[in-house]
C-alpha cells in the first residue's frame, strides 16, 4: 500500500541538483547585482588598504618633516603633506584603520546587545516588551547625533570610548529590527510546531527564530557601518571622538578646515575616502536588501 504513495515522488523532480537554501539563493541574486558588487568592492578595497597600511605606506603617519610642509600632491607625496609635513597618503591609509574599525566594532557591539534586547522584547511580548520599548523610546527620542555627542563628551575622547558611545546610540535600531522580525514570526506555524514536538524556548529562539530573522538585521548592520563611519568622522570633526595625532579621517578633516582656501587637497582626500566608504556600503546595503527580499523588485 505504501507504493501508491511512493509513486507520488516519481513524477516531479526537484529542480536543482544541488539543493540551495534560501540564503544561498539570495546570495546568488546578490552576486548578480552590479551596483551591490561594486559597492562591496569599493569597501573591501578600502579595508584592504587599511589592513595593509603598515606595509604599503611610504612614511609613518606621525613622521613630521617641517621642511616639507604644505606640499601639493607630487610623486614623492601622492596626496601631498599637511601642516606638519606629514605625508597625507600614509595618514589616510592608517586613518582607514581607525575609521573603519570603529565603524565595524561599534556596529558589531550594537548588534549583539540589540539582538538580545530585541529577542527578549519580541518573544515574550506583553509587559516585558512594553517596558523595553519605552526604554528604547527614550533613547530614540534624542537625536542620534546629539546623543552620541553627549555620551562621547561624558566619556571623553579616545578609541574605545568612541566605540562605546556609537554602539549605545545604535542599539535601539537593531533591537527594533529584530523585535519586528520576531513578532511577525511568532505566529508562524512552524514555531507552534516546534513547541508541539517539545522544543524549549531557548532552542526555539536560536534555531527557529533567529536564523529566519537575521536577513533584515544584515541590511541594518550594513547601513549602520556606513552611518557610524560618518558619525565617527563627525565626532572627531567637532573635537570629540578620536583626536590628533591619530590620523582618523574626520580628525584630518577637522584639522584641514583652517586651510581650505590655500590647501584644499588637505580636505579633499579625507573627505573623498569617507564619502567612498559610505557610498560603497550603501550600494551594497541596497543590493543586500533587494537580494533578501526579491518580491520588492517584481
Amino acid at each position, binding site marked *: 500500500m505504501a507504493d501508491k504513495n511512493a509513486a*507520488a515522488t516519481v513524477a516531479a523532480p526537484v529542480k536543482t541538483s544541488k539543493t540551495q537554501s534560501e540564503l544561498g539563493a539570495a546570495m546568488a*541574486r546578490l552576486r548578480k547585482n552590479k551596483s551591490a558588487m561594486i559597492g562591496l568592492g569599493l569597501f573591501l578595497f578600502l579595508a584592504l588598504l587599511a589592513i595593509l597600511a603598515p606595509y604599503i605606506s611610504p612614511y609613518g603617519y606621525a613622521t613630521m618633516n617641517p621642511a616639507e610642509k604644505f606640499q601639493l600632491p607630487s610623486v614623492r607625496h601622492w596626496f601631498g603633506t599637511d601642516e606638519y609635513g606629514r605625508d597625507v597618503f600614509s595618514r589616510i591609509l592608517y586613518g582607514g584603520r581607525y575609521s573603519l574599525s570603529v565603524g565595524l566594532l561599534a556596529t558589531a557591539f550594537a548588534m549583539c546587545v540589540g539582538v538580545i534586547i530585541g529577542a527578549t522584547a519580541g518573544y515574550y511580548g506583553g509587559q516585558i516588551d512594553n517596558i523595553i520599548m519605552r526604554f528604547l523610546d527614550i533613547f530614540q527620542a534624542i537625536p542620534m547625533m546629539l546623543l552620541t555627542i553627549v555620551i562621547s563628551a561624558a566619556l571623553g575622547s579616545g578609541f574605545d570610548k568612541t566605540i562605546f558611545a556609537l554602539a549605545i546610540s545604535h542599539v535601539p535600531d537593531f533591537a527594533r529590527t529584530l523585535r519586528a522580525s520576531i513578532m511577525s514570526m511568532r505566529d508562524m506555524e512552524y514555531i507552534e510546531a516546534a513547541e508541539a514536538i517539545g522544543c524549549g524556548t531557548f532552542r526555539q529562539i536560536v534555531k527557529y527564530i533567529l536564523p529566519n530573522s537575521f536577513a533584515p538585521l544584515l541590511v541594518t548592520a550594513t547601513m549602520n557601518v556606513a552611518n557610524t563611519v560618518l558619525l565617527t568622522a563627525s565626532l572627531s570633526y567637532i573635537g570629540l571622538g578620536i583626536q590628533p595625532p591619530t590620523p582618523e579621517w574626520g580628525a584630518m578633516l577637522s584639522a584641514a578646515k583652517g586651510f581650505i582656501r590655500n590647501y584644499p587637497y588637505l580636505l579633499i582626500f579625507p573627505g573623498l575616502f569617507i564619502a567612498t566608504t559610505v557610498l560603497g556600503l550603501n550600494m551594497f546595503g541596497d543590493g543586500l536588501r533587494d537580494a533578501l527580499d526579491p518580491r520588492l523588485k517584481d
Partner: protein
Amino acid sequence: MADTKNTFLEVKDLVVQYTSAGEVIHAVNGISLQLERGQTLALVGETGAGKTTIGKSIMRILPDRSASIKSGSIFLEGQDLLQLSEIDMRKVRGARISMVFQDPMTALNPTMKIGNQISEVIKIHNEVSKAEAKKQAISILELVGITAERYDAYPHQFSGGMKQRVIVAMALACSPELLLADEPTTALDVTIQAQILEMIYALRDKSKMAMILITHDLGIVAQAADTLAVIYAGEILEYGTKEAIFKDPSHPYTMGLFKAIPNLTSDSRRLANIEGLPPDPTVLPAGCCFHPRCPYAQEECRSIKPELEVISPGHDCRCTRSSEIKQEVANVF
C-alpha cells in the same frame, strides 16, 4: 465548438509567458475560447494551470515587467483588445469588463471608505457629479445586501463575506457586459460562499451579463456554468457544455478530477487520486502535457501533441486515445 462571427467574446490562440530569474514560464500555451452574451463559462483547473493568467490577459492587467502576451487575439464583439492602446483599454476595464478577485482581504484599499471605492469606479466611467455617483453607489451596495449607512465604513470594519460583497459591488457598478470572477468564494466559509454565489447568479441573470468563472470546485461549476474548459499546464484539455462533460468526461485528467473529489454520495473510503504532480511550467513535457501522470499513456502520447478534437457537438477533447480509454474503463466494470 462552432465559431460564429458574432460571438461576444472570442479568445484565439492565446500564448502568455512570464520571465522570472532568467527562466521562461509557459503559463498559457495556445488557448481558444468562445463566449456568448449572458452565458457563463467556467475555467476549471488546479493551481498553476493558467486560469488566472487567462483572466488577467483579457483584462490586460498582467504585470508589465515579468509577463508578456506572446501571441493570440482577444476579440470583444469583434474588436481585438490586445490591439487597443492603454487609454482605450482603460475605458473597457470596469465599464465593459470587470473582475472579482480571489482574496477579499487584500483586494480593497484599506485607507479608503468602501462607498467611495465604488463611487470612484462610477465616476471614472461616467460623466456624473460626485453626488450622483454616490447615489448610484448606494443603490449598488443595497443590491449586494449592504445598508446605505455603511457607505462610510472602512474595509477593516467588515468581515470577509461583507468585503467580498463590496468587491462584487465594485465590479458591477458600471453594469459590465462581462464579469471575470476569479475564485470569488474560495477564501470564504461555506455558508457565506452560498450567499455570495447566489447573489452573483441573481445579479448576472438580472442584467444578462456574460461571466467567466475561474474555479477549481466542480460543484460550483455544476451550479453556475453553461460551458466549461478544463485547463492544465496552460492548455485546454477538454471543452464543452456542462452537461456533455459531466455526463461524459472524456479526458483522463477530467476523469481523474471527478474521481479525486471526495463527494457526498460515494461510499468508498479511499479516494482515487491522480498520481504525480503538475508539470514544471519552465520545462513542459513533450507530446501530451498530461502524459507523465496519465495512467493510460502510451508511446504516441509521449511524442505527439494531440489536437483539440470534436468528439460530439458541443464537446471537444484533447486526447488521441479518449474513446479507447472509455472502452477500457467500461470493460473493467
